[in-house]
């Protein structure tokens, strides 16, 4: 669907509402080996508005390069749910880095 000025409706509206300079803060929880590698169980991460969980992991790995070795084995949970594909994060979200689990 197109509007009079030729712009597509939908996505650009969201884009217009997004301020590239605005940051959102996400609480990142680290467990098991990820916690030991980083040396902390929680990191408050500031990312650009519109950033996804995958971009948060990339930023976290940039800040804590020790995480690089497990980047391909961790999965992510956002607000207590596993995410199967990158999801946009919001201010105040709780993201967890879930290394391979071993309960039982």
């Amino acid at each position, binding site marked *: 669907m197109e509007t009079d000025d030729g712009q597509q409706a939908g996505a650009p509206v969201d884009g217009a509402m997004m301020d590239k300079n605005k940051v959102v803060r996400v609480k990142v*929880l680290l*467990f*098991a*080996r990820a916690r030991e590698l980083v040396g902390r169980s929680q990191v408050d991460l500031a990312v650009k508005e519109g950033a996804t969980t995958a971009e948060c992991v990339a930023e976290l790995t940039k800040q804590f390069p020790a995480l690089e070795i497990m980047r391909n*084995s961790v*999965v992510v*949970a956002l607000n*207590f*749910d*596993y995410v*199967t594909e990158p999801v946009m994060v919001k201010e105040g979200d709780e993201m*967890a880095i*879930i*290394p*391979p*689990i*071993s*309960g*039982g």
Partner: protein
Amino acid sequence: MEREAVKKMKEGKDDVLDIVDTTIDMGKYVDAVRDPGAGAISTFIGTTRDTFQNKEVIELQYEAYKPMAILELKKICTLARSKWSLIGIAVAHRLGTVPIGEESVFIAVSSVHRKDSLDACQFIIDELKARVPIWKKEVYSNGEVWKENAEFLQRAQVRS
């Protein structure tokens, strides 16, 4: 009153899901699923082993993402109830240092007939190992290793 009783029986008992820092009181969880309408209570006890690939394990340390672990356990119970006719489900997982030979996880399921609770009990432990965010570190005399459940790794491949 009578209608309430019938409704309660159809819905079963509330799930009892605990993550504890001390010894698991197994009797408490069996009693939680005990019911006059149940003809069977099936249980699974996971205990800590003293060896891994010929290495002597000194102790095991567990940690959890508690709120998510409880939510995942709740989802597993809902799934189990959709697959089998169950009355009560109780799951307890222990955290912290667990000495060798002690219980790390306990599951109790009750049903009218035994097949439902036996099958559900197996399903619940398999799902727990695949998706409940709990981690175990094995400490040896010459090092330590964070364990990885095969059930989780198989599912992670599907996820990515």
